[in-house]
Structures are given as C-alpha cells and as structure tokens.
C-alpha cells in the first residue's frame, strides 16, 4: 500500500500526469452535465453517433495531412449534431435509424481513408488509439491542455447560465415553445455543446467509449435522486470522482485510460443501482 502511494506521489509530479488529470476531470464533468439531457430526451445514442463522425473527420484531417485536426473535427461534428437533433422530430428516417446510419457510415469511411492514405507505419495502432483513446491523454501538449480547459469552462458557464432553459426544453419542449421559449435556439445550442464535448472527449477515452461518459453518470444519479438539480449535481460529482480515480489507477496499474475509467463507471453504476434499490424498494 505505501509502495503504491509512493508510486502515485512520484507520478503526480510529472506534468503529463497532471495534465491528464485536469483535462480528464473537466471533460468528464462536461459530458456528465449534458448527458442528463441526452438520456432524458432519449438521445443517448447521439453521443455515440457523433463520436464516430468525429473519428471520420479525424481520418479526413489525416488524409489532408493537417497538423491541427481540431478545427475540422469540431466543424464536421457540430454540423452533424445540428442535423441529427433537428431531424429528431419530423425526419422521414427516424431518429435512431439516422444516428445508426451516420455512425457506422462515418466509422467505415474513416477507417477506409486511414487505411488507404495514412503514411503512418502502424495503422492498426493509430486506429486502436483513436477508437479506445489508449494513450493520447498522456501525450497532451500544453497548447492542447489549454484548449481543453478553455472549452470546458465555456461549456460549464453556458450550462449554468442556460440551466433553467435546458430544463424547460428537456421536460416539455411543446409547452416551452408554446409559451414563448425559443426551443429551437436552445436545441441548437445543445447540439453545438454536445459536439464540442465529444471532440474533447475523444482525447480522453477515444471515440468508442465516449457514450459511457455521457450515459453512466446520468443513469447512476437517476437511481439515487429525484429532482433535476440533485441529479445534475450528483452526476457531476460522480463523473469527476470516477474520472480522477480511473486516470490514477491507469497510471499506477499501467492500464489503458479510457477502458479503466469506463470499468470504474460500471462498478459505480452497480453500487448506485443497488443503493437506489435498497433506498426506494425494488423497482424494475
């Protein structure tokens, strides 16, 4: 035990571990906040779909040999988010089918592009780390850390300022619209924020595991709490703790960061579920 603590204190002095912790916790916090709205609006899979789109965008950036792929990824992902959320209600192709279509499409085309055009000697390694985010969070440059911090804080501020509006639009969009809330505008805002978070989260857990950051905190908090505010706070705390713990464990035990965080989130979910069941009697 003392050995582990020594090892941990040693690692914590390295800037790359500090960066990973800061960025990881902020990203987890942001995704958990937005996750509640997505889960409640029955849009859980949008996070998943968008992350695949971001993967496709990254592949395109690789083809054009862009050194900084963030802007392109952000642009493409935001655009897809807007299209998906807009088409939610009245599209000819139903929401979930549209998400599935875009999601696998982007994944396939992205891999095809990377496979054909990438100059890297280790393509499968590249693909693996993009999908599962194996090491990229530990290799962040200082500029990337700053970008992540600034974007995360921006997301947090927007979320707090629009908290009441997000609640109104999530609970009952028709009522909100009928009584003069500009629901379309806030849906658009949500789409943009979600896209930003997804692109940020790719660094942390890779594109296949982002959904976990979005869904688990919300579902766990909903087991335990019954008002929107307490669920929000609980999801945020849950998310920060699991992300920090996951990163530390992965550093000490030398496991992939993304999968470790998700594994801890699953464990925490089971605990919350059990606690909720004991507290409120067994529910289905």
């Amino acid at each position, binding site marked *: 035990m003392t050995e582990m603590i020594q090892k941990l204190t040693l690692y914590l002095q390295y800037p790359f571990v500090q960066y990973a912790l800061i960025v990881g916790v902020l990203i987890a916090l942001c995704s958990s906040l937005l996750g509640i709205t997505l889960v409640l609006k029955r849009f859980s899979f949008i996070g998943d779909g968008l992350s695949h789109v971001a993967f496709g965008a990254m592949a395109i950036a690789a083809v054009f040999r862009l050194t900084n792929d963030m802007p392109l990824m952000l642009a493409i992902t935001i655009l897809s988010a807007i299209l998906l959320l807009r088409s939610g209600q009245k599209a000819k192709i139903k929401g979930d089918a549209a998400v599935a279509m875009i999601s696998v499409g982007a994944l396939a085309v992205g891999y095809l592009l990377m496979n054909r055009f990438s100059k890297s000697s280790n393509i499968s390694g590249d693909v693996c780390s993009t999908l599962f985010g194996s090491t990229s969070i530990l290799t962040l440059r200082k500029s990337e850390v700053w970008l992540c911090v600034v974007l995360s804080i921006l997301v947090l501020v927007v979320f707090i300022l629009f908290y009441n509006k997000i609640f109104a639009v999530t609970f009952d969009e*028709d009522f909100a*619209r009928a009584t003069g809330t500009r629901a379309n505008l806030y849906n658009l805002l949500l789409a943009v924020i979600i896209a930003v978070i997804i692109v940020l989260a790719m660094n942390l857990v890779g594109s296949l595991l982002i959904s976990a950051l979005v869904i688990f905190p919300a579902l766990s908090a909903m087991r335990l709490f019954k008002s929107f505010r307490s669920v929000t706070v609980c999801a945020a705390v849950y998310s920060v703790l699991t992300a920090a713990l996951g990163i530390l464990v992965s550093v000490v035990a030398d496991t992939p960061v993304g999968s470790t965080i998700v594994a801890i989130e699953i464990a925490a979910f089971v605990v919350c579920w059990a606690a909720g069941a004991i507290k409120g009697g067994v529910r289905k």
Partner: protein
Amino acid sequence: MAQLICQDLTLGYDGHEILSGLSFEVDAGEYLCIVGENGSGKSTLMKTILGLQSPMRGKVTTGDGLRRSEIGYLPQQTVVQRDFPASVWEIVLSGCQGRQGLRPFYTKEDKALARENIRKMGLEALTKRCYRELSGGQQQRVLLARALCATQKILLLDEPVSGLDPKVTAEMYGLIDTLNKRDGITVIMISHDLDAAMRYATHILHIGSTVFFGSKADYLRSDAASSFRKEDETA
C-alpha cells in the same frame, strides 16, 4: 374584442387536408369545449392555436391584449415525462420560463407566482416530491399549476381527464371550472366527454364531418349534436 380569432383555417399535415374553412372566436371568460371524433383534427387544431404548427391556409390571431406566448397549455403526458427526475417545484417554476428572455435565473416574483399556483392547486404538501411518483390526478394538477405560471388569461387543455378515475375526474373538472368562474380565465378544452362539455362549457366547437360553432344552447338543437350523441350511444 375577442381574445382568440381563427379565420378560415385549413388544417393538416404533409399536404393532407383534414379540416377546412374553420372560423371561430373566443372572448375573455368563455369556456369553449372542442369535441369531435378521433382523427377529426382536434389535436392539430390545438397545436395550430399554440403556434407549434402553422395552418395550411387561414390565420390565428390574438386580441384583447393577449400575446401569443401568454396562452397556458396543459398537454397530454409524454413518454419522456413518465420517468423524468424532477420535483414538483422545478416543474411549476418552469412555467415562468417563457417570459425570461435571455435572463438566466428566476426572479423572486417568479418564485412567488409559482408558490401561489402550487397553493391554488392544493399541492403544498407535494412541493418537494418527485413528479414521476405522483398519481395521475396529482400530475395533472402540477401541469395545471405550471400552465398558470405561464398565463393569467387563457388556458388550453388537451383532454385533461384522460386516464383519471371518476372521482379525480370530477375534482379536475371542478378545479378548471373554479379557474374559469372565479379567476376569469378563459378555458379552451379538448374533450371526449360530451356530458362534461354540456355541463361546464359556455360554447361548443364540434369538428368532424359536420362542423358546428356556437353557444351550448344552440348546439343542443343542432344536427351535429344529435349525430355525435347517436354515435356515442352505438359505440
């Protein structure tokens, strides 16, 4: 001047007409029941009045100092709401959202209004309770309190008693009637329940194969009523 004026409306969706040439007016303090068979366009009409959907032809205007966003709305329950983690307080307060503009937080006045409407609906004891754990009748009262936060003038109710047992149904009708008579709030209600419509409404709008709009007394003498009644009996 009338609070709500619908002129020569043609309603439908995807280019498919379900109702045409509909005109009617609602004055302040009236109690209008919209009745008609399933699929006759009652819900579409309601969405059009609320501005959630635009009519294919014709127009909806408001008058008598009523703004379009001051129409309170009691929707039918949605799937999303059934397991939504929200307290009664949070939901009622969200009725004030329409007036907020870009202001991020609720004011003291908003909160006082929410508290007042919770009291009016007899929900004080449930303020902190979770919405999804309430009974159907309690949930409807929560949504009614929210609608009252959005308006002091006119309420649109979309089948407010569907799924409620007879006792709660009677209470709900009583509550709506009090709002109409005592607080002078105009009520427009979609209903399947012709008996209740006959009992409380001042005016009837019957849509479907025959269209009728007028006072309750006129409706009772009309053909629309007798044909609807007959269908009701055979069904």
